């Protein structure tokens, strides 16, 4: 099932299938298509959204998280 990263529930895991915008910013922090991630926290209004990828936490704004598509397992 596809979801945007900004709608993932706490503790939910999935695989990144598409990054619509800010690809470069996210790639250089380790968030790339094909990567497995886990939702750590998602704060309302502007974020931050924090996900765990390869044991590393990555934080981003809610608007950027909305541009990332994740396939939920």
């Amino acid at each position: 099932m596809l979801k945007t990263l900004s709608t993932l529930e706490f503790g939910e895991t999935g695989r990144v299938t598409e990054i619509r915008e800010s690809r470069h910013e996210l790639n250089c922090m380790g968030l790339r298509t094909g990567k497995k991630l886990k939702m750590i926290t998602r704060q309302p209004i502007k974020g931050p959204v924090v996900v765990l990828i390869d044991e590393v936490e990555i934080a981003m704004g809610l608007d950027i998280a909305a541009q990332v598509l994740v396939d939920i397992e």
Partner: protein
Amino acid sequence: MMGNPNVGKSALFNRLTGADAVVSNYPGTTVDYTAGKLIEGRTIYEIIDIPGTYSLEPHDAAEKVAVLLLEEHRGDVVMIVLDATKIERGLYLAFEIMEQEYPCIIALNMTDVAHDKQIKVNAPEIQRLLGIPVVETTAISGEGVKHLAGAIRKAQVADMDAIGRRLEESEQNPEETTLTPGCGNCRRCG
């Protein structure tokens, strides 16, 4: 010295030069550069500690300083500092720098933290794959710093095509690069 924020560049800089740049446990501490001198053998190096950046496309003022400094020092040796617990993230920037044909060496810092987290890093293999010197360091204790200083003169311009070929080869023979738990990678067992 270049690397992601919070990988220990300033701590390593202090160890190399005896300076006292501000060091903290959160990213974004260094917002401007600091320069210092390192005497190694008969060579005097000027070491520049640069704010951390995730890529060469700056997103804030501190990252802009980092990118401008790199461009100003075209041809100089770049010491790429990686956090041994977050190598993959750091390699993105490392490759961007290597692609621009700067002579590079890699400091694999925070090996103490990697050890605590039971992350095993095969530094000789990274060195073989990238074709540039890779030195394991722990800036807070000073481990590997002398070795790192000695490696500066061995800096190499990376051959990106050769790296691609070596990566393809090692993907075809992955068993050669796997390590068993507790392996110190002395390579005497094979």
